[in-house]
């Protein structure tokens, strides 16, 4: 299992199109930032954790389609993706139960000892939702894509079945 993305890109290319690869290289950071913007700014405009999470996860989908799903999968351990989803649920529960522990109701943000507790609390919860959603979408992408490129070389299957 290689953790070096450059190594993976060199070995097997999914779509051997320099135009697509260059475009994804340029566009991916902007899409990632836009997803984070939707997630954080959901409190004041349209958007929120669910939408932002999906947009953030499309960065991984773009990378997978441009540079090959197997190299991206090797670079981004699927077990870590699932763990990240658990972290998202845990973060949401932490805020919800934390306010209960501090003597308030569930998600009773004003009891948190920070300034603008309600606003930042809501944005933290949106971020947690975004982490859950993006983790699940990336996990589904990897799971469904498992074996798509396996006929390229059968010998490497045990290295990156998923």
């Amino acid at each position, binding site marked *: 299992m290689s953790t070096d993305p450059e190594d993976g890109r060199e070995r097997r290319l999914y779509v051997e199109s320099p135009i697509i690869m260059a475009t994804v290289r340029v566009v991916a950071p902007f899409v990632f930032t836009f997803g984070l913007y*939707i997630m954080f700014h*959901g*409190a*004041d*405009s*349209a*958007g*929120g954790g*669910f*939408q932002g999470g*999906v*947009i953030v*996860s*499309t960065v991984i*989908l773009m990378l997978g*389609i441009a540079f090959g799903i197997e190299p991206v999968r090797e670079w981004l351990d*699927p*077990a870590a993706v*699932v763990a990240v*989803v*658990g972290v*998202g*649920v845990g973060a*949401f*529960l932490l805020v*919800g139960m934390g306010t209960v522990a501090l003597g308030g109701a*569930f*998600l009773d*943000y004003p009891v948190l000892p920070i300034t*603008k507790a*309600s*606003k930042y*609390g*809501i944005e933290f*919860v*949106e971020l*947690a*939702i975004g982490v*859950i*959603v993006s*983790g*699940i*979408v990336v*996990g*589904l*992408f*990897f*799971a*469904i*894509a*498992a*074996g*798509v490129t396996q006929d390229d070389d059968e010998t490497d299957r045990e290295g990156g*079945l*998923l």
Partner: protein
Amino acid sequence: MVDPLALTLLSLVLACALATAVLRDVLGAIIAFAAYSLGISIIWVVLRAPDVGLTEAAVGAGVTTVLFLLTIAKTVRPSGDRLLVSPDPKGLAVAALLVGVLLTTLGALPPVGSDATPVATSEVTEYYLENAYKEAGVKNAVTAVLAAYRGFDTLGEAVVVFAAGVGLLVVLNKEVFE
């Protein structure tokens, strides 16, 4: 309802939905389905529901299309000269019956944009619109409802996404956890 924009969008959505149903080529059907989702998301924006429109564009037109494309990459596509499928008459009858039954409820719906809808006149809506900024500190009332007033529901939703996703991953591929 003679707004030309709405008429264009609705006919686009209907045409795409029909194309999705009758196209024999699976790839073509998936592309038509993505166009359908795009049309629906524009309709949501026109109806002033940008949150829902954003979700439809990201999930319906984006991620679902990619997942469908991956699925047909792993399955066999039927080949043939015919462009359209010949629909099963029994299935068509059931579908027509269902649509007919659902259409009978259309008359009970308030007109689009009417200020007398229960959504607009309910005192719950009034309360959220008046107090969301003061109590939750956020300008988007939808977010205030989701993350503050109905936070426990949202936790349930998030856990449903988590449980459904992990369950699917287990079914699709066990190796992910090993």
